[in-house]
């Protein structure tokens, strides 16, 4: 993350909002000063050491700082962990995602983990135990034990254990290890030293040695990186558990039976929320929304299933060039992952009608060849620009043109690949019989597909999209080039901002400049079909909004502004940075507005904090007070959800 002044301010505000002023001030100080010892902080903050210690402890509890202790040194160096500070904003979204994907008990556990920061498993168990006991007491005390409705989501420590196991397997929770608090730089330094000492004692000489060195380094870094996932690996070794859990997405109906099948976790281990993996899952959700926007709900549902399978073993959105480029494997998994049609078919809910959301047409109107083209390798990045580029005759994918006459009909009889006996009755997936009758001889008749082929049609639509949602990488094999699809999504979000800020004509101009490169003002009216005066006004408006930029080109060696001509261009990175900055500041403003509202309603709010009022506000407060309280809650909710929505944009532009 690029830590600008705005980001620093925003993070300080968030920490202040969540954990109070002291940690926030220390965090800010760490950001301004950079690496500091407690002595440095003491000096520059003019605070007692114990106070600072307390603040640092809070920050460490929530993983908001790095620290590093050189062997033999007396004082550790502290550094701010800006990423994690920003992620605090995303907590709500993460919880929501966990709830929908893993059920309310999982959300409950995750929420506790977010509230208390890193936690020993033992402590978590104790906390839950207390609650469960209390609940049991209430149950015993209630007049009608049978009909007592507990509002506990996690009803036994066994269930808790099982929920944690599941979240660990999903990588949403991982272990706090010795290296957790080392900053990336420190880890790199440490690993470099290790590799040097162990394998390259005499130094690295020659190209071959250099490559070998990089490989060793990457290997070691990968090891360090995957250490927090050691628990996951252990669980996975535990045989059937992973397979059984596949079925768990549905709910916790017979929870107790399953709980007992999970190994008891070591209470001494400390766990925390793994934001990296959460980001991967959030990205999936956003991609599904993107697909839904483009092609409708049913297609996006299919996409959701595809993504779920595909990202199971993807630990992070962005690859680290240092770690992931050397050696074809990422965390021991081959680089190109794919999902088969059969896998997706198996995971679709039976209640879903796949014929919904598909346009109907005749065999004659479809080119099977074009539709089912297979692309084993990802397209070059440049084809992205092509999306915006308007077709001239030059086209970069001429190999498609090798295709001759295209009147081949679509004989949609899809033959599912031989299903390996996962369990015997898969073979009868409605393929036989149905398919035969669905096959019409008449080219002019509307095609009726059976279910596997309906699924395939949705996948093919995604694969055909200009937005690179899916790549058809082998027969009935599907993958996603995340970099490409995210690039297209980023552009689409920026376009939305541009259009909403400077209108449809503004968007038009920005996209023209993006597609055509630098242009003289004179060339624009014809392409944009706009009047000169309007065009000039728009360009200036957009320039001040940071969406287009101008470059002066002198006609003569001696630059003379009057004689120079001006080239307009639109730089996506610049636009992105500008929009990010606006987003951060908007979030800040939301928090500040909330702060102001709190101040305004402080009399009401202080009353509601009283223990005798809490939970019974409606009865205890005067009518007028209660109304104000309600209004405040509503505003608070609006502001928070707005922050969430802005963060959606930030996530797309920066993290996914």
């Amino acid at each position: 993350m690029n830590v600008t002044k705005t980001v620093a301010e925003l993070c300080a505000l968030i920490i202040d909002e969540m954990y109070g002023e002291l940690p926030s001030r220390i965090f800010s100080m760490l950001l301004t000063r950079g690496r500091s010892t407690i002595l440095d902080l003491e000096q520059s903050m003019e605070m007692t050491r114990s106070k600072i210690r307390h603040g640092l402890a809070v920050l460490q509890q929530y993983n908001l700082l790095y620290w590093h202790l050189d062997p033999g040194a007396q004082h550790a160096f502290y550094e701010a962990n800006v990423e994690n500070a920003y992620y605090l904003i995303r907590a709500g979204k993460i919880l929501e995602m966990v709830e929908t994907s893993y059920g309310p008990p999982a959300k409950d556990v995750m929420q506790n983990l977010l509230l208390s920061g890193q936690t020993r498993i033992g402590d978590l168990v104790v906390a839950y135990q207390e609650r469960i006991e209390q609940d049991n007491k209430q149950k015993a005390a209630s007049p009608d034990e049978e009909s007592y409705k507990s509002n506990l989501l996690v009803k036994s420590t066994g269930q808790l254990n099982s929920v944690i196991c599941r979240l660990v397997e999903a990588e949403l929770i991982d272990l706090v290890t010795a290296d957790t608090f080392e900053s990336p730089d420190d880890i790199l330094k440490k690993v470099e030293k290790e590799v040097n000492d162990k394998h390259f004692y005499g130094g690295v000489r020659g190209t071959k040695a250099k490559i070998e060195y990089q490989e060793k380094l990457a290997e070691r870094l990968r090891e360090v990186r995957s250490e927090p996932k050691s628990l996951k690996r252990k669980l996975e070794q535990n045989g059937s558990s992973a397979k059984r859990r596949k079925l768990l997405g549905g709910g916790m109906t017979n929870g107790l039976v399953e709980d007992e099948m999970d190994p008891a976790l070591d209470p001494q281990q400390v766990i925390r929320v793994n934001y990296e993996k959460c980001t991967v899952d959030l990205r999936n959700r956003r991609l599904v929304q993107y697909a839904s926007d483009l092609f409708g709900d049913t297609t996006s549902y299919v996409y959701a299933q595809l993504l779920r399978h595909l990202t199971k073993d993807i630990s992070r959105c962005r690859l680290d060039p240092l770690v992931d480029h050397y050696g074809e494997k990422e965390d021991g998994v081959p680089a190109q992952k794919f999902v088969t049609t059969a896998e997706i078919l198996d995971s679709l809910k039976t209640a879903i009608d796949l014929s919904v959301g598909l346009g109907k047409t005749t065999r004659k109107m479809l080119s099977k060849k074009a539709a089912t083209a297979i692309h084993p390798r990802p397209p070059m990045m440049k084809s992205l620009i092509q999306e915006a580029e308007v077709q001239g005759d030059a086209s970069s994918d001429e190999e498609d043109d090798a295709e001759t006459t295209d009147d081949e009909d679509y004989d949609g009889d899809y033959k599912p690949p031989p299903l390996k006996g996962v369990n015997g009755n898969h073979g009868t997936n409605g393929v036989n019989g149905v398919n035969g009758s669905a096959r019409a001889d008449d080219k002019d008749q509307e095609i009726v597909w059976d279910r596997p082929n309906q699924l395939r049609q949705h996948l093919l639509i995604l694969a055909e999209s200009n937005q690179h949602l899916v790549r058809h990488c082998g027969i009935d094999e599907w993958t996603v080039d995340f970099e490409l699809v995210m690039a297209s999504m980023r552009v689409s979000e920026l376009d939305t901002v541009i259009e909403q800020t400077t209108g449809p004509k503004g968007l038009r101009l920005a996209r023209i400049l993006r597609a055509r490169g630098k242009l003289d003002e004179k060339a624009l009216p014809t392409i944009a079909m706009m009047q000169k005066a309007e065009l000039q006004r728009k360009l200036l408006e957009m320039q001040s909004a940071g969406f287009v930029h101008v470059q002066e080109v002198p006609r003569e060696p001696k630059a003379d502004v009057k004689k120079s001509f001006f080239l307009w261009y639109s730089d996506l990175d610049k636009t992105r940075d500008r929009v990010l900055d606006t987003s951060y500041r908007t979030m800040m403003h939301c928090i500040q507005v909330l702060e102001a509202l709190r101040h305004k309603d402080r009399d009401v709010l202080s009353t509601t904090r009283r223990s005798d009022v809490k939970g019974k506000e409606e009865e205890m407060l005067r009518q007028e007070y209660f109304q104000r309280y309600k209004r405040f809650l509503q505003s608070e909710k609006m502001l928070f959800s707005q922050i969430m929505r802005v963060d959606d944009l930030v996530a797309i532009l920066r993290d996914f």
Partner: protein
Amino acid sequence: MEEGEAAKVDILKNTLYDTVIQHGSNTRLFTQSDLLDLDIIPHRNLQLLLQVIQALTNDKLLVGVTGGQGGLAWKYRSREDAKKYTSLPDETTMLVYQAIDEAGNDGIWKRTIENRVNISDAVMKVCIKILEQRGYIASMRSVEQPNRKMYIRADLRPSHRATGGPWFTDGQLDGSFIETLEGVVFEFIKGRGAYHQAPGAGSGGATRIPKRGVVTAAPTVTAGTKRSAKEITSDDVTPAATPGRPVAVASPASAAAAKSARKPEMFLPMPAGYKGYPTIHDITEFIHQLGITSNTTLGENDIRQLVEVLIFDGLIEPIKVGKRRGFRALRPTKQSTIPYNIRAKEMQNGIGLHLPHTGVLPPTNGLTEAPCGRCPVFDLCEEGGTVSPSTCVYFMEWLGLEEKKKEGDGVAEVKVEAGSDGKGSAPP
């Protein structure tokens, strides 16, 4: 010159002219040998040829030009045109007319003529007056240089270059014409590039619609005033309405199930490999058949220009199926199913005027919905500054805590409620 000689030249002159016009258009250049080869001048007498040419030039029937390989050459002028020249009172006027004549349908700038003929502004005025009175020339404007006074032969129509092509009317880009056509073309592309599902056209029986995918956003209700992680939660209750794009994460349930089991009227994406996406050719043909462009004909290049604008507007996308380069509307399922002509009528009656010609509002996102995303004083806004979040009226309005200000209300009397410490002032 003897009488007989003169008569001979006169006859040869007419014969040569009549033959020359048989040999090509008035832009063809004839060299000396071309003319001799016509076999009209006896004995290929060069002297005689030059005499004849001179006579024709005097009659303005031939014009000498510097030919292709540097030698002299001639082209002819129609008798009609030549008469115009000979009827002019003096050489200067003739030269001025010649300059205008030669500029063709691009026209020529007044100053260029003055420089070429080397005359003063006053003389120029006289010449122009004569020529205009006789109806030989007309003034015109070019879209390229709208401030220049230009002239063109009265019987010519200004070129595309000068008028700006079919998109210009009287030298002005015809915005409303373009917009109408954009609407029509978009409508055509949308209809041809997607499947129009009629309302309620179920396949019989209960239609099963995706319930809730793994991605469903179930609103999490939270409340409280404490600072907790729990509070930063994304209830999808967004104050600013977001038409055109659902706020909620794609949940098949939210969109489809709400409309019960009946299939809603909407556009659906075509299966991959669809060969019916309209091409530039299809669109051009459609526009011709429609006949809405009565006084201009739009070629494929004109239509391509228009289609490109639609792409730049983010409304349609090119889609290549095999060799066929077609176009389709982006986000088919989000498109309006009301046909363009009905929309146009509605708009005449004042309905839906806020909508663009697509009939659908453009997408929004979290940033553009927040007051700050549209704030005119964003750059100035800062806690402690003259404009600050804690005194922000836009937010108060947005949160519904304050009435929307009417135009003209004094900005001075801002109701600073939040944390009123007196320093509050509002953005203008």
